[in-house]
């Protein structure tokens, strides 16, 4: 009985292997139409090729581009000026004010290269989960109430998409052929993609676009990886009833994509 069951199991296994092999064989066999199209120009591929060619022509001075993936820890705090809020809403100051840096994270990719063989740059694209400590600049009180309050409550967790263009200045520190230190600066732009709460939208204060000035240092270990620390000082891109100053410290690491995959 056991021998019969074992035989039938083996048959099943053999059948499965044969069917997988057969299906893979059929997958490799091209149809007449596929065979014909292999010799013809694919319009979409041709378009991509043309775009690549045109970009290469336009950005001829941008050379040595390396794509890296990065991850970073972000410490954030925002200073909030709610003087412009007219809505008669109060939040007890001590419950919403948190004058500390909270921890978030970000990840994305960056392109490092050299412009005209002289100026080093980095373009980065990231998604950021920002957890932020809120520091409210103004306190209000309504006598005979004792407690201080604010008129506005900002979101302390949000997600942004960001782009950055950084200029990298090589610093003459140590053996520059092995380890490279850079001073980095440039602008970056964040766009909030997470839902903005109704509390933050009061009086049109819910600004999604943030423009930053970035400053930092980077350590390149023989091209294997880059360790970096950036400080970002951000403000609303558009005028708002509640001007917000966003301070961020990012500590991260980037590794070349070709070393990873």
């Amino acid at each position: 009985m056991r021998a019969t069951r074992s035989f039938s199991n083996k048959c099943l296994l053999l059948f499965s292997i044969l069917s997988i092999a057969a299906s893979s064989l059929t997958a490799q066999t091209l149809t007449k139409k596929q065979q014909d199209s292999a010799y013809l120009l694919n319009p979409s591929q041709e378009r991509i090729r043309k775009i690549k060619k045109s970009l290469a022509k336009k950005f001829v001075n941008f050379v040595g581009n390396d794509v890296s993936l990065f991850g970073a820890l972000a410490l954030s705090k925002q200073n909030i000026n709610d003087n412009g809020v007219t809505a008669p809403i109060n939040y007890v100051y001590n419950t919403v004010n948190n004058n500390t840096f909270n921890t978030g994270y970000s990840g994305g990719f960056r392109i490092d290269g050299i412009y005209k063989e002289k100026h080093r740059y980095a373009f980065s694209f990231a998604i950021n989960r920002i957890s932020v400590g809120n520091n409210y600049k103004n306190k209000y009180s309504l006598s005979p109430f004792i407690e201080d309050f604010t008129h506005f409550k900002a979101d302390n967790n949000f997600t942004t998409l960001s782009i950055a263009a950084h200029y990298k200045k090589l610093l003459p520190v140590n053996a520059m052929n092995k380890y490279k230190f850079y001073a980095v600066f440039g602008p970056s732009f964040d766009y909030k993609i997470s839902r903005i709460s109704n509390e933050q939208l009061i009086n049109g204060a819910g600004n999604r676009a943030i423009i930053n000035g970035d400053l930092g240092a980077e350590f390149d270990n023989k091209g294997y990886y880059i360790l970096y620390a950036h400080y970002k000082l951000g403000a609303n891109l558009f005028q708002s009833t509640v001007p917000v100053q966003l301070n961020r410290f990012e500590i991260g690491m980037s590794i070349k994509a070709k070393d990873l995959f």
Partner: protein
Amino acid sequence: MKKLYILLLAAIAFTFGSCNKETATTQTDVMNRMLTNKNWYLDYSITGTSTKSYVGQSTYFVTYLKDGTTKDSDGLTGTYSVEVIGDQSQIHVQLKTANGNPLEVIYNIISVGGSNLVLSKVVTTGTPTQLYFTSK
């Protein structure tokens, strides 16, 4: 290539155009959320320079329920709505007195929060009374 630029410009315009999504009901939504389903206890009433304190006393309270009805410790019941007229936020209360007569009372909202509420009763003549409530 021209099409690509147009698409890019359209995407940028859409992105910046959708920056502010405040609606007409945003403010009333937030105020309603703070106001409803709590007992608001009267702590102070101020008329002109005269301040009356009810702190520590068994005193008047009013409740605004989520379904748009209101009741107070005096047994008055009715309906209410939060409205923003011009820059002024108000609570419009439609009450029925003990005799069954309808009565409308309008309060200007001076400040509303999770635990503090300040109202000013709208009066046609005389000095308006400011009412200071806390929720417990």
